[in-house]
């Protein structure tokens, strides 16, 4: 009977596939069990690839056999196989990727990639089409707050960390808890040195994903056998955030409060793990950004290297000016009748001078009134790093040589102006004996940087302040660590009253 013959052929085919699988599993077991980790892995891969090639070859042989001997079966099978191959190699490959920005690069590549900031800016512009409230400044504030609260919470225990579940996924919380050493009592002194937006993707889909890389330090306090010890770590972590694309970003106050993202009540859970007030389990970023995954890239007790001489790059390059800047500038001036470029630039110079003086003397509190909380924290990270290594970076006779406005951004909550500042001075690093360990006291160094100043859109339309007085009450500038004026109680570092410095970018990393 011919059909029996065909059955036999198929039985042979199935036996062949089974034999193949048996051989494959045998190969894996042998290699993995008998050799070292690296060698075992390689051997297994080689045998596996060989088995697959052999299987494909045998399947082709089977198809040829069927086509010739039993065309009634073989030809339809040929058609199916060819159609599947065409679909896989032509149609599927031709489909556009849903990834907005390539996510294939490793972290080293994406975080240091020159294209990343520019692509992130473009992605954020696109996101604003769906969410006009989206503000990079507010998003950054939110991420800084969440980072600090998450690490603080892991020091308090996994229950405290679970309270943050509307913002931290299970996998992310597990990754954080895994960092905890035995006898951990507290995580304190959490300072973020920098946050890089490594990737933004998914803008064509209902879910947007953002990858961030944090550079930070914190101190873990442990108590083992009644012996209390402290250990400070410098870490790099990659955080994967996601959110529904179409939701509206909350106001800055709501974003950084880290309350229930649905009802806005304080984070408090009922027995089912849902919000005690609105009864919702928020677990996927339905309302606000949600951390899906955390990967620790580096974690060392050693601080960053501060004694290397890095030559200036890009100082002589032309300024990168926002496309259509002149028109944007005219529109901005029209919408802000009280704004004066002269006063703005005078204020920018004043802040520049104050910051250089504060940096050189390691008296960073002097810079507090002029920087946003995040930038101040970032600079504090570096100041602390210098202090821990008993070093001091000095910029002598520092003067501003040029200042050029290059970009104006107005989002839902903030106005931001970026200027390219040209400066010169003697830049060197000294140790506790005043011995120069990097840089030079004799070689005049020239550099340019892109400085971004922000001001809250709700700020009263008053003249830009060009002296060292509180922009709210006019009293001499005296603020606490939170950036609040000690006389009027106004928070002057959030741009609610006047322009404050939000970001400093180097020539080589700035892309507009």
């Amino acid at each position: 009977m011919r059909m029996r013959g065909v059955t036999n052929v198929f039985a042979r085919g199935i036996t062949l596939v089974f034999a193949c699988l048996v051989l494959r599993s045998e190969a894996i077991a042998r290699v993995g069990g008998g050799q070292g980790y690296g060698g075992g892995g390689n051997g297994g891969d080689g045998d596996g690839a060989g088995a697959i090639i052999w299987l494909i070859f045998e399947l082709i042989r089977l198809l040829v056999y069927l086509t010739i001997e039993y065309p009634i079966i073989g030809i339809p099978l040929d058609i199916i196989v060819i159609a599947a191959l065409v679909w896989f190699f032509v149609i599927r490959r031709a489909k556009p990727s849903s990834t907005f920005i390539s996510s294939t690069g490793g972290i080293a590549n994406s975080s240091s990639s020159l294209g990343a900031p520019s692509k992130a800016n473009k992605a954020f512009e696109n996101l604003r089409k769906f969410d006009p409230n989206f503000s990079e400044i507010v998003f950054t504030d939110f991420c800084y707050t969440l980072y600090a609260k998450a690490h603080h919470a892991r020091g308090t225990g996994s229950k405290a960390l679970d309270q943050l579940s509307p913002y931290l996924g299970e996998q992310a919380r597990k990754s954080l808890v895994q960092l905890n050493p035995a006898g951990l009592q507290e995580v304190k002194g959490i300072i973020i040195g920098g946050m890089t937006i490594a990737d933004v993707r998914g803008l064509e889909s209902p879910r947007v994903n953002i990858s961030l890389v944090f550079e930070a330090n914190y101190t873990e306090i442990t108590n083992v056998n009644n012996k209390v010890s402290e250990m400070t770590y410098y870490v790099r972590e990659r955080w994967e955030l996601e959110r529904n694309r179409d939701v509206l970003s909350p106001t800055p106050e709501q974003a950084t409060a880290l309350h229930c993202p649905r009802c806005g009540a304080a984070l408090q859970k009922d027995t089912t793990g849902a919000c005690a007030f609105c009864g919702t389990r928020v677990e996927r970023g339905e309302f606000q950004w949600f951390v899906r995954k955390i990967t620790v890239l580096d974690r060392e007790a050693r601080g960053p290297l501060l004694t290397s001489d890095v030559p200036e790059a890009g100082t002589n390059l032309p300024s990168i000016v926002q496309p259509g800047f002149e028109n944007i500038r005219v529109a901005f001036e029209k919408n802000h009748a009280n704004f004066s470029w002269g006063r703005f630039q005078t204020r920018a110079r004043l802040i520049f001078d104050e910051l250089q003086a504060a940096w050189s003397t390691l008296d960073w509190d002097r810079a507090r009134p002029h920087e946003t909380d995040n930038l101040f924290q970032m600079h504090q990270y570096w100041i602390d790093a210098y202090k821990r290594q008993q070093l001091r970076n000095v910029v002598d006779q520092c003067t501003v040589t040029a200042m050029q406005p290059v970009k104006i951004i107005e989002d839902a909550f903030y106005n931001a102006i970026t200027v390219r500042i040209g400066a010169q001075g003697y830049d060197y690093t000294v140790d506790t004996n005043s011995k120069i360990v990097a840089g030079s006291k004799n070689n005049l160094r020239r550099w340019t940087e892109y400085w971004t100043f922000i001001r809250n859109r709700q700020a009263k339309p008053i003249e830009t302040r060009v002296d060292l007085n509180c922009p709210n009450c006019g009293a001499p500038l005296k603020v606490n660590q939170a950036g609040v004026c000690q006389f009027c109680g106004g928070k002057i570092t959030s741009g609610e009253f006047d322009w404050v410095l939000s970001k400093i970018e180097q020539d080589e990393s700035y892309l507009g």
Partner: protein
Amino acid sequence: MSHARFDDDARQALTACVKEIETRTDAELVLAVRSRSDSYRHADYLFGALLAVAGLIFLLFSPVTFHPNWVLIEVVLFFALGAFLSSRSNVLKRLLTGKKLRAEKVRMSAAAMFYEAGIANTRQETGILVYVSLLERRLEVLADRGVLTSMPAMEWNEELFELHEAGRRGDAKLLEKALHNLSDLLAKYLPATGENPNELADAPRFELT
């Protein structure tokens, strides 16, 4: 999800709800309820192919002997039967298509309607499309800039969540309730001024064939 849930009573209730929204707010709301956002023909063919393969295996390994000349015809018949069954079944289509693909199709259809129906071109940028696709169990809300910039984020997100839930469950009553809540929100932050002309047809679009 059954179309029965969007029966005549439900349709009338939703029509009344949309009319009420239009009177209370300057927003121009368009409600569209569709049975599906794509034919998902490939799912039919896939099910047909699966049935054909299953049939072929049955023919080959069955203790009953079949004449070889019938095999091709029977395989083709199995394929046609599978494709037909799948074309009639939302469950099969859902099983044989990816969630991501279904979401993409709904989003594309909603976006196409947003532009083609002129919702994106209202004078004060106050168009809103609430698009429900029953097979995919999805609801999309596309709102123009004028609406988004007027709404407080937390409350808007809350309404959005409720609408999506209603779409996911395919429940006309839930949808009506969510639309009423949306109506309150719109009336509060984008109230009817009497100056904004009614630029879009108020009647919901039901395409449930």
